[in-house]
């Protein structure tokens, strides 16, 4: 198992290398530069700036310099947030996004899982229909609609929760963004769980468990759910990576200083290092979560072996 994990981590290195290389050059193909303003800067200033950020060197040299820095864990200075390095920016914002994402993920798993399982047990009855309707709504209503509605009711009219701001991660500040972020995930997880749970409950080994008079908990959780959760686990890999690397919409609406908004700002301002930094962070998350999913899979299903 350890060997397998090490192997997977090693094989991630060429993947990351390719991702960095491709996005580095793609980024430069896009027209415009980080210092192109509406009113052009003076030639001398421009020259100095370019020199400072190595933009006067050839693309190839820039690439080598960037690669060297990345290898040392230095993602370079931001072109747009002039006083910050990318590392500093991420050090502030990434933990916030991770906290937000993890909370939403946990909430989605618990609520979605419970909803899916109860719907499966009461298939084609009231509970089932209610869950499936809620799930459809959860998927179809976009979060930029949900977020203002929730803020309006719970924040403005009722005044129970703050309408925005991070407040250093205080509980009341977290509730609304986490719920908004989790809602579509809850819906997807509930649907997935319901589907595979219905199948599991009809399977022969669950019939055996019922024929041997085992308790409801043993049948549903021990024998049915463990197998039924596998598709959800597969879904969670990419979903978790997406959640933990921040959401532009949620962060903008609730005024949260997470990493999500850097995607947009970086791209719009041609902030090369910022875009590269976010690409690397997202890639790392995707790789790590896919690995976690595979390891979890093996832990849940003994038929999956890595040696």
């Amino acid at each position, binding site marked *: 198992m350890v060997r397998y994990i090490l192997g997977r981590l090693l094989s991630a290195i060429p993947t990351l290398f390719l991702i960095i290389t491709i996005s580095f050059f793609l980024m430069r193909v896009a027209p415009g530069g980080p210092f192109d303003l509406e009113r052009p800067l003076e030639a001398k200033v421009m020259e100095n700036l370019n020199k400072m950020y190595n933009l006067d060197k050839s693309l190839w040299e820039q690439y080598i310099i960037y690669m060297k820095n990345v290898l040392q864990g230095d993602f370079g200075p931001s072109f747009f947030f002039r006083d910050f390095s990318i590392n500093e920016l991420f050090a502030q914002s990434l933990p916030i996004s991770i906290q937000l994402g993890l909370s939403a993920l946990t909430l989605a798993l618990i609520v979605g899982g419970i909803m899916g399982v109860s719907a499966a047990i009461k298939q084609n009855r009231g509970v089932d229909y209610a869950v499936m309707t809620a799930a459809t709504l959860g998927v179809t209503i976009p979060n930029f609609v949900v977020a203002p509605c929730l803020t309006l009711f719970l924040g403005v009219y009722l005044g129970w929760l703050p309408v925005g701001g991070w407040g250093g991660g205080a509980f009341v500040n977290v509730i609304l963004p986490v719920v908004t972020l989790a809602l579509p995930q809850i819906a997807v997880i509930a649907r997935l769980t319901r589907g595979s749970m219905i199948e599991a409950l009809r399977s022969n080994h669950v019939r*055996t468990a019922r024929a*041997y*008079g*085992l308790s409801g908990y043993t049948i549903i959780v021990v024998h049915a759910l463990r*197998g039924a959760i596998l598709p959800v686990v597969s879904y969670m890999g990419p979903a978790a990576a997406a959640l933990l690397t921040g959401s532009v919409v949620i962060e903008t609406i609730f005024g949260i200083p997470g990493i999500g908004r850097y995607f947009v700002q970086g791209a719009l301002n041609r902030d090369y290092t910022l875009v590269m930094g976010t690409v690397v962070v997202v890639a790392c998350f995707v790789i790590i979560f896919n690995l976690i999913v595979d390891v979890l899979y093996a832990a849940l299903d003994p038929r999956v072996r890595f040696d």
Partner: protein
Amino acid sequence: MSTINENTVLVIDDLKVDFATNAGMVNAVKGVNIHVDAGETVAIVGESGSGKSQSMMAAMGLLAQNGQTQGSVKYKGQELLGLSSRKLNQIRGAKITMIFQEPMTSLDPLYTIERQLCEPMVEHGGYTWKTARKRAVELLDLVGIPEPARKVKAYPYEMSGGQRQRVMIAMALANDPDILIADEPTTALDVTTQAQILELMADLQKRLGMAVVFITHDLGIVERISDRVYVMKSGEVVEEGDTKEIFSKPAHPYTRMLLDAEPTGRKLDTNEDKPVVLEGTKVRVEFETETGFLKPNHVLRAVNDISITVREGQTVGIVGESGSGKSTLGRALLQLLPNADGRVVYCGNDISGWSKRQMRPLRKEMQLIFQDPFGSLSPRMTVGQIITEGLLVHEPHLSAAERDQRAIQALEEVSMDPAMRNRYPHEFSGGQRQRIAIARTMVLKPKLVVLDEPTSALDRTIQKQVIELLRGLQKENGLTYLFISHDLAVVRAMSDTVMVMKKGEVIEAGLTDDIFRNPKEEYTRELIHAAVLRDDEAA
């Protein structure tokens, strides 16, 4: 005839089972009376859909969600129908236990044998996990699993079907039940494994003295193990009585039909001088399984230097248990396996190692029919489309109307209503689907057909019809068959010559009657014994 008395442990009285489906109510069981005395073996016989399993499922509260019951099921005077699941759970798994037809899937793939054996003991038998684990080893030993202390830690996927069924039996015995319900426990197993499991059950019953309810469609088994028989048809018990009486003097026509359902008749003309259609010399197939980095790969020789000659109009039967390599041989001869070695000559052409493109014109003449009539027809195509799909490749010049005409002919050939061609496969029974599969083959007018267990998934009476159909088609069209089966009764009825395969080798071959009358090899004798062939006079 036995009546209800003080020894009776299970009484099923006027049991009705209905299923609410989209097409309305389906009455699966229509008022059945069955009783079981302590310590006796009762067989419930019937074909699939006769309601034999559903009546027992209803008794155990295991019906699907859309199932409803009426009537009464009493275990030692206690009514089971309508009991809360908490109350019912004190009986099922403790006093009444079950073994199912599907040994491969009846155990949870995610837990060890030990864990699954212990669960009912801890739940009902007052065991602690520790004492249950000890008993689990004893139970595995009891059901004849070698190295029980090691095997108990295994997962189901690490065991064969026979071993899994033994584990199920161990589980059923764990709490010393009064009644053991066995629902087709040997149907999915090889014949020799089947014989072992039956012996084990008979032996355990003698030692432990529980009553056994044996649900089966196989009359050979019934005759061998049961004291009394209930014959079920379309949800009703049509006949009941002592096994001997039923077998010697069957009163109901349906019972007589079941007893006659063993495939009979022979294919007599052995065409020794006819031209050779297919000749394989030293055919060998090896599969490599990767064992790991830098370790030598494990080589499994599925087919080991087998030579075979098939003449025009002949049927060569290939017999063997699962894993003997018989299907692999069939596929290798048709050049469907890229890793096959050896020489294969088809109608004078050496086709060994031909590419897909080279083989394509020949494919029309060499067809394959599969075992699984449910999985081998595309659910999204109509029967007509399925049947004529091959024509699109092999006779592309045909117009849609001509193809439709051919589909009609093909369906008539297999005795099906041509109007069925606009329906979808799921609307048909297993036997009808196999007819559709045969029609799909016949529409191409093949010369050689490899039949890979074409009747194994079918009931005996349907089997008989399919065999007669296949024999008829062969006679009319001069077809050559390679008939692969583990079912000796069917092979005997179909083939001119027989090859017995074991572990990739042919251990015995010869004319069908010679093999069945005077088997030379011990393994062949074992197979014939295990198959419980009923004598037929036509021999």
